[in-house]
């Protein structure tokens, strides 16, 4: 039975992977960007766990910038995804412009918090 479960797990994984390959490239780029942001946040958390949280606001600003940009990227993905019926009328360029603007505002705030 164990062998079948592991084989099942492998089959499941392969099925997921082939289904994912079907997504359009721009969505894959956004996914990659999200993964990048999350990994950066994780590394920062591990560092804080190792050395303590003395300049706490630096830790917060680092982690929150990663998380914030990941969230904005997810929003962009939702708006750009053609299969998403709610945002059919929204042009992807408009979503991208929102994404850029929000990121700039986020990073301004993060920089201010990092400094102060």
């Amino acid at each position, binding site marked *: 039975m164990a062998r079948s479960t592991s084989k099942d797990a492998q089959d499941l994984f392969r099925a997921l992977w082939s289904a994912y390959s079907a997504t359009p*490239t721009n969505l*894959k*780029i956004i996914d*990659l*960007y999200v*993964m*990048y*942001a999350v*990994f*950066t946040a994780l*590394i*920062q958390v591990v*560092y804080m766990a*190792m*050395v*303590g949280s*003395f300049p706490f606001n630096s830790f917060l600003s680092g982690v929150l910038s990663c998380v914030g940009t990941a969230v904005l990227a997810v929003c962009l993905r939702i708006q750009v995804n053609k299969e998403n019926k709610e945002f059919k009328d929204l*042009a*992807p*360029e*408009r979503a*991208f*412009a929102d994404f*850029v*603007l929000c990121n*700039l505002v986020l*990073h*301004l705030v993060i*920089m*201010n918090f*990092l*400094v102060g």
Partner: protein
Amino acid sequence: MALLSITFFVTIVFDECINTSDDGTFYFDEKLVGGHEHQGSISTTSSVVRGVFAFAAVTSGKINLPGDKILGLAKFFLGIGIPGDAKDLFNQIESLALLESNRQVVFQEQHIVVKISIPLILSLPASVYSLSNKDQLKVRVNTVLGSAAPPLTVKLVRAFSTVAKDSAVIQNKDLKYDQNSGHHVLDVLPDKVDVGIYVFVFEMVLHDADGEKVYATGGQIHVPIYVTGIVKVSNAEIAVLDNDLGSIETQKTLDLAGNDIVSLSANHLQKFRFSFQLTTPRGHAFMPHQAFLKLKHETKYEHIFVVGNAGKKFEIVLDFLGLVEKFYYLSGRYDIELTVGDAVMENSFLRPLGHLELDLPEAPTSKAPRLPPLAVDPYTRYGPKAEITHLFRTPEKRPPTQLSLIFLSLTLLPLIGFLVGLLRLGVNLRNFPSSAAPATYAILFHLGIAAVLVLYVLFWLKLDLFTTLKTTALLGVFLLFVGHRILSHLATASAKLKSA
């Protein structure tokens, strides 16, 4: 008649309006005389003296003024010292000058009649006589301003000690007159005179019988005399006794004239006994004014005890059992000092006797004795205090630099992973507009974003929020305009592609 009544008036003035004090001086006070200006007793008395002498100058016959009153006036003027006021000084010297000389002499039927007597003053150059120096008792007799007295003999009627007023140690001795110095001298004090405070009673006897009318001598004059001498301290014994039995544990004799000291030890169950004897030069027992024993601990706490006496022997017994609390339970080394002093003792001393190692029980913690504060040296009280070094808040522990740098590089790894992934996905710039205007906008769009990010880096490095916000606003406006252009161009291009 008028002269007689004035004479009568003068005697009444002197009888009724004169003040006396205990030391035999006579003076007039302003309360009785009255007058327009405020007159002190010096000016009042000198006014009276001036008036009396002026009156005597114009009258004939004797004025019945008793000699002791004249002497009292003289003593008053001599006894006030040097007045601070120039007017008072003048009054004093003028009155003394009037009392000094014998101007009021009238020859009447071959007899000298003096209207006002001349006071004679008896004084002693020193009132302290030392038995060890074998001083001589010297007495001077002069008029008020120091002129020579007529020939007379000073008699020492009697001398008695202040403690034994009834018995006289000297009686009826005549003093010899020394021509060279002008003093009357008593050469040798008899052996009965020991150290102490005495009162000598003198009397002046004039050689000339008529002199009694001319001079006022004042009868018997009492003079306090201090007779000092060396007091012998002997038979000093220090002992440490066991408490109940009274048996002697250590006993040492001490020569208090020399410099030797003793070293003793005792515990709280024992007693300390110290005794000595004091003898006067004539061999009698001596009671000094002060006889104290002081025990001083190494921590500078001291305790003083009075040494009592029984007859000739002075003895003090310290029972340490009762003194444990008084000594604040402080064990250790105590320095012992003895002090014996008196005004008539020429060799009063403060002598360290030695040390006592005292072993006292521990202080009970429930009732810990609060030691009183020691006397502070007044010169150090307001001196500079100890310097306080401020301890700043210790900075937080920071991780080692290498670790931080390692994690910095680790943080950049996901970025590399992202770029690699982008390449693997086949990212290209095919949709980049080729025609001029859109291309410019595209480039400007990208440059605008890069500029904002660079601005943020500058903000982190050195700018403040306000300049950053200002610049961000400007760049943002620019970026909005450019971005709108390029993105709308892209949107129309893709819409055209979709429709086509």
